[in-house]
């Protein structure tokens, strides 16, 4: 793993930002501060960051209902995101979207999406643009979304049109309350993707380096004009499907074990410190920075202006 110190710091900062963002939301939601449905990304940070650290603003990603991590990893303004989730008119989407639809087209982030499976076809279209730009388009999906017809159609169409699209399947082993082993009839979603006629690989979704290295290979492969590819990332979700989920589908002690043994932040810290690439102190410094950033985001969000009735009919059309 030949990463510059800056690159490692940046990767860790991104992952940590997502983690603290989500943990803080978890607390704020418990206080009844936040409206709507919120799906937290904590536990999967290595996936979003391992993918997006390769990307620039002309590379596109499309996300899911569990989109905060992808947004942050792709460079969306963290304070603007928090304000959005708090329903402020200063939010990234003016309070129209909330948690489930955050987007920033200028950053190449084509939106979190409340419809499971809706993202993959849109990523195919971004792949048409990417092909003409020499960039790539990434569709994030889950182990549940991979069973939706739209995802399958998108995979076949990307192969037929030989587009630079990478289907990233974050396998956190649950779709809502249902186990992946039940809902995916195939031997694995990777075997199934491969049979669509694309390069399909797996990586360790709690290890930033595993994801990052695998993605480098796939991005080169797609940019070389070989058509689409897919990758399955074995990862973990630390919170409920949505905030308020009793999580009775978890095994005994499962959550404690995950936090203990399968925390991508711990894995990263151990790897880089043991390899002497970063000092514990470097990491502690980032932690402090990030904590401060999220604290500021929350404080500003609580004070941020709220939308008014006259905003309801704004932005339905550009001109009408």
């Amino acid at each position: 793993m030949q990463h510059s110190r800056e690159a490692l710091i940046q990767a860790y900062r991104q992952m940590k930002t997502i983690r603290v963002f989500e943990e803080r939301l978890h607390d704020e939601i418990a206080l009844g501060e936040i409206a709507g449905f919120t799906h937290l990304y904590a536990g999967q940070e290595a996936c979003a960051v391992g993918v997006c650290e390769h990307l620039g603003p002309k590379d596109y990603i499309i996300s899911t209902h569990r989109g905060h991590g992808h947004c942050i990893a792709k460079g969306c303004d963290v304070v603007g995101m928090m304000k959005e989730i708090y329903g402020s008119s200063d939010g990234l989407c003016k309070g129209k979207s909330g948690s489930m639809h955050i987007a920033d087209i200028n950053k190449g982030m084509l939106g979190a999406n409340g419809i499971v499976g809706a993202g993959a076809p849109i990523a195919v279209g971004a792949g048409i643009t990417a092909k003409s730009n020499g960039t790539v388009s990434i569709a994030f999906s889950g182990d549940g979304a991979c069973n939706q017809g739209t995802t399958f159609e998108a995979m076949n169409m990307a192969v037929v049109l030989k587009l630079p699209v990478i289907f990233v399947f974050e396998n956190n082993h649950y779709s809502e309350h249902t186990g992946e082993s039940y809902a995916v009839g195939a031997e694995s979603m990777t075997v199934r993707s491969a049979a669509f006629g694309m390069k399909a690989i797996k990586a360790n979704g709690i290890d930033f380096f595993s994801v990052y290295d695998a993605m480098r290979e796939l991005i080169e492969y797609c940019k070389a004009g070989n058509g689409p590819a897919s990758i399955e990332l074995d990862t973990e979700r630390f919170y409920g499907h949505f905030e308020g989920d009793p999580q009775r589908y978890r095994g005994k002690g499962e959550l404690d074990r995950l936090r203990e043994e399968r925390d991508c932040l711990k894995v990263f810290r151990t790897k880089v410190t043991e390899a002497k690439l970063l000092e514990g102190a470097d990491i502690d410094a980032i932690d402090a920075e990030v904590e401060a950033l999220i604290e500021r985001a929350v404080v500003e969000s609580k004070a941020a202006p709220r939308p008014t009735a006259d905003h309801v009919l704004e932005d339905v059309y550009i001109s009408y």
Partner: protein
Amino acid sequence: MARQMIRDVIRDTIDAEMARDENVIMLGEDIVGGMGSPGGPEAIGGIWGTSGGLWAKYGSDRVIDTPISESAIIGAAAGASLTGKRAIAEIMFADFIGVCMDQIWNQVAKFRYMFGGKSKCPIVIRMPYGAGYNAAPQHSQSIHAMVTAMPGLKVVMPTTAADVKGLLTTAIRDDDPVIFLEHKALYGLKGEVPDGEYLIPFGHARQVTQGDDVTILATGMMVGFAEKAAAQLAQDGIGCDLLDLRTTSPLDEEAIMDSVERTGRLLIVDEAPPRCSFATDLSALVANKAFASLKAPIEMVTGPHSPVPFARELESAYVPSPDKIVAAAVKAMSYRRG
């Protein structure tokens, strides 16, 4: 008579019908919950809590948890119902009709017609709908106009615990396809529920308040808001004849005509956006069939021509409110032909 929450009335009604007829089956996402998980099946029993305990009682052949594949859910329910079962399909949010509409519109609704009247497809498609959870544009919509427009479907929109029991029982025993729309914000509402077998025929509106000044037509969540408004209007001496239509297809035209002929004024309340809506459907009916009785323009209080926004302030500005209903009624009352 027992006092129950609507979500429990739904589960108990399905339970009773499954016990009564072994051909009744259920399909949907997480309606069991925990399939293939360490915690095991029945970890949840439906994210709305409308199917808890049913899998334990009736097993995997009758309470069928599915992958996230709405087209296959409706298709499977349709194919089972064409061949002798009576399937109850749950689409977790009505907004997801977008990914399975062909199966509802071009398949289920048209089978009997296309097949020359030689088939039946006794399917019930349950769809939680409506705003109120700040669930943002893709999880807050009211889709009754779309399905009411589809020939071949019956469309039910219950508002009280008792009506949920009576109308869901009728829906499950009906041999035609039924779209059963449950307002998400009403699941927690409690009400008296008649004991034993209880059926309410489709096409019969419920008279909520009586009055001779203005007719108010509403469905679902809007009935309660209109009731609030009617109470306030009564204090100002305006008598509202409020009808909860219960089913949008078939429609109780008779009750509507009787009321409008008496009041001469019509106000329609609809949570959905205004264009080509159920509100316009009712207005057009009256403007054609009861024109002579009309003393004032037909007023409509609906959502605006926009998606349902997320923020609390925006969503509550979006949804029709008792105040807006009061204002519209007053407007109708104060109209004088120029």
